[in-house]
């Protein structure tokens, strides 16, 4: 359909619609008497568009988009699991969606926040939680500010933080936003943190601690995790757990028991809230007892008079977002946790790891697996050994031709040409087998018909796009 190429702005017809304007029953006085004309705009250039044109335009656009409801979405470190539809129903109950953040009669909402905090506490082992942060990176910033404030309260100067080279890119960026400089630690040949180098780094002056994800971005559980956290603690540091990879640990092992002091979670990853095309998410932060006073304002506590908010906490890092966090996302996660219960969550951890290992074993028959060992929720292949100069990007684009989404590529940076695959627990064996079959076919194509792969995608609504052109001459709107 050629019309799909048009932007919505070309579909207006100049006829003004007032479908969404309530009746004006009172006699309003002339606008110029309320607001001086000099404060008013001369013109507004957004089109008037018939409703049917808007609906058709976006339904057609939606058909040029791929979500996890279309099929497997094996984006590593993103945990693209199925989003239960009941979540959408509960978040839209008017008692949740139509309430104002500053209204008094809010006990149902406060209970959602309080109970979700408690349950996340049980899942991670942490004693205190805030649900304020709006996404994972926001949670990281919050957690690091807590760290900073904690040391400040003890009059200890700490300006550096250790981040392994396998970390998510948000880790160093968040550390910088919290005012820390970064000591990058190289992973060892098993993808783990080398203890001697960690010890060496911790002996440097002013080191606040470490940011770590475990299992890490190679999908590998660091077997020496207790040693790592011990070394950091013995040298006066704190341990931060990046919860982006918590999914396989559900009901199996808890960050607190690994020795961590601060954790952020991604409700849109582990707890099934929709990714929304890149948000909204939610990034709750949990801490051990000693750090509770530093949590952001307001703190939600339970008293004899019900669940209330406490905002006079002197040691707190302060507010990190207006109101209560992404409440609509929190309800969805709360719904999910209640739905699954303790046994359901444990199964999530188990099956996410089963699915990942199943794919790993089958795919390593054709593709290079640089860290060859049992994985947790994800694993990383590389393009090493592919013939005819076929590279990771080509593989990813060719996957799209088979009507499914590609894994995360070129991340983690410690693997050249990384292909990072996380199937999640909600993929059936059929779906996994289909993915394997596609990957095998592409492997054959790379040998027999490399141009097909290198020019891919060929079956999508558009061919491979020129990223360099987009960045050289940015066109960001019409």
């Amino acid at each position, binding site marked *: 359909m050629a019309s799909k190429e048009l932007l919505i702005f070309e579909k207006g017809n100049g006829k003004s619609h007032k479908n969404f304007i309530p009746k004006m029953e009172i006699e309003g006085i002339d606008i110029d008497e309320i607001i001086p004309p000099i*404060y008013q705009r001369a013109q507004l250039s957004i089109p*008037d568009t018939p409703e049917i044109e808007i609906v058709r335009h*976006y339904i057609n656009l939606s058909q040029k988009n791929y979500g996890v409801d279309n099929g497997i979405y094996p984006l590593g470190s993103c945990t693209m699991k199925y989003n239960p539809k009941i979540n959408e129903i509960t978040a839209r109950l008017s008692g949740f969606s139509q309430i104002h953040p500053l209204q008094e009669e809010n006990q149902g909402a406060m209970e959602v926040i309080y109970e979700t905090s408690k349950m996340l506490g049980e899942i991670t082992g942490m004693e205190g939680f805030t649900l304020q942060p709006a996404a994972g990176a926001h949670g990281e910033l919050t957690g690091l500010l807590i760290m900073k404030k904690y040391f400040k309260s003890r009059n200890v100067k700490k300006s550096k933080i250790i981040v392994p080279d396998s970390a998510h890119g948000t880790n160093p960026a968040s550390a910088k936003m919290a005012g820390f400089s970064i000591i990058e630690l190289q992973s060892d040949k098993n993808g783990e943190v080398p203890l001697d180098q960690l010890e060496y780094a911790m002996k440097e002056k002013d080191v606040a601690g470490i940011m770590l994800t475990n299992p890490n971005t190679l999908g590998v559980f660091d077997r020496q995790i207790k040693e790592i956290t011990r070394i950091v603690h013995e040298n006066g540091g704190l341990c931060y757990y990046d919860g982006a990879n918590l999914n396989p640990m559900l009901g*199996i092992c808890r960050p607190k028991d690994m020795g961590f002091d601060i954790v952020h979670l991604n409700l849109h990853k582990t707890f099934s809230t929709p990714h929304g095309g890149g948000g909204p998410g939610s990034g709750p932060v949990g801490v051990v007892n000693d750090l509770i006073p530093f949590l952001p304002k307001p703190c939600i506590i339970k008293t004899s008079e019900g669940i209330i908010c406490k905002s006079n906490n002197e040691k707190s890092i302060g507010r990190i977002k207006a109101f209560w966090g992404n*409440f609509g996302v929190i309800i969805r996660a709360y719904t999910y946790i209640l739905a699954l219960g*303790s046994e359901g969550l444990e199964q999530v951890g188990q099956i996410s790891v089963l699915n990942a290992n199943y794919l790993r074993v089958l795919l390593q028959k054709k593709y290079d697996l640089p860290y060859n060992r049992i994985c947790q929720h994800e694993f990383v292949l590389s393009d090493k050994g592919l013939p005819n100069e076929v590279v990771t990007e080509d593989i990813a684009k060719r996957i799209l031709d088979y009507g499914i989404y590609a894994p995360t590529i070129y991340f983690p940076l410690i693997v050249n040409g990384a292909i990072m695959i996380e199937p999640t627990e909600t993929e059936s064996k059929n779906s996994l087998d289909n993915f394997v079959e596609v990957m095998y076919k592409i492997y054959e194509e790379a040998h027999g018909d490399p141009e097909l792969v290198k020019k891919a995608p060929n079956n999508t609504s558009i061919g491979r796009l020129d990223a360099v052109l987009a960045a050289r001459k940015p066109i960001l709107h019409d």
Partner: protein
Amino acid sequence: MKLDFIPHNEKIIEEMLNTIGVNTIDDLFQDIPDDIKIKKLNLSSGLSEPDLLRYLKSLSLQNKVYSYSFLGAGCYYHYIPSIVDFVISRPEFYSSYTPYQAEASQGYLQAIYEYQTIISKVTHMDIANASMYDGSTALAEAAIMATIITGKNKVILLEGIHPEYIEVVKTYCWGQEIDHKIIKENQLKNEITEDIAAVLFQSPNFFGDIENIEDMVRIIRDRSQKCLIIQVMTDPTCLGILKPPGELDIDIYVAEGQAFGISPSFGGPGLGVFTAKQKYLRKMPGRLIGKTKELYGEKTGFILTLQVREQHIRREKASSNICTNQALCSLAALIYLLSLGKTGLKEIAVQNFQKAHYLKSELIKLSGYEILNKKPTYNEFMLKCPNIEALINECKKKDLLPPLKMSKYYPKLDDVALVCVTECNSQKSIEKFIDAAKNAIENY
């Protein structure tokens, strides 16, 4: 009976374990030391869908939903066209993620490009990003961006900024050791010096006042050429009438976009609108969608661009740590603005002005009440009350969500209410509010 989203049966699990070459699922967790494995989470058992829904419904009923609202203060009740939820509920949109694979994500990429376009049109700013978390964090990131651009380390906030936004800016500034100072508007003349990175102000401000922005900009520019001017709004529907920031020489304009078709939802998720002048493009935080062409063809398409600013490439040198943002809320705002069109957005703004103004003019007729705003106002104003508690109670009796008690944020203003009236307030509801105000004098 509980919900279960795992597709495998026992036999399939067995087969998969065989393929992997292990005997049990536990074998897959052999890297985890035994002493930190847990036996069982101490949570309740799972629930079936009907049981779950019944419970959550009952919980939601503990929150009161009023027929009409007179509360704003950063979160607004505007009418949301039905098609907004219809479009954002399309699973292809809401169950996708950041469009890293552009060729399989053209729908969303085009939609966000259209969002960036419509925001540029409404604000007249050169460029808009794909979104920030909310108005408060957008403002904080704007302040940080200004310190990066200017190399100066101090920002000035005018006191009319939403008090929770001020707190958020303070927290972010503390993280980066940026100095800040909160001043009154009439102190501007004396406070602007060459070492200021930015002045942050809100208009219409938290008290309801619409500032004389042209005057403010002149005062600032006369005293410093380097200082950036950052405007924030909590209800940008006023742009249907008010002069947009792009015509007022504003450097960075941010807003809470919840008013654009997003339900209040206890204050989140909202939408951080973020716009700037073209020259600041490469210092901007957040995702940007750009137009480009096929590599091996001529078709036009859309792609995430200027990613070298971003954390996943630049790591600690990135302009911000933001990754996941509020994409679906951007889509909602886009559909909202398109549904209204220029005619509708203008009409909405006019109704907000007129209805709020009508209520103001009726209230000053009542003895004991006083409107504290000396400047023009949009849909919010400060009402000094003879008995504010009585007014709140009377509102509740009439099923009206009462206005904000200003003392929540400003203890000294203990007899002042911040009243909000939008297009959703019918004449009947406004009359009820006037009755409530009358009763609050007579019956107490």
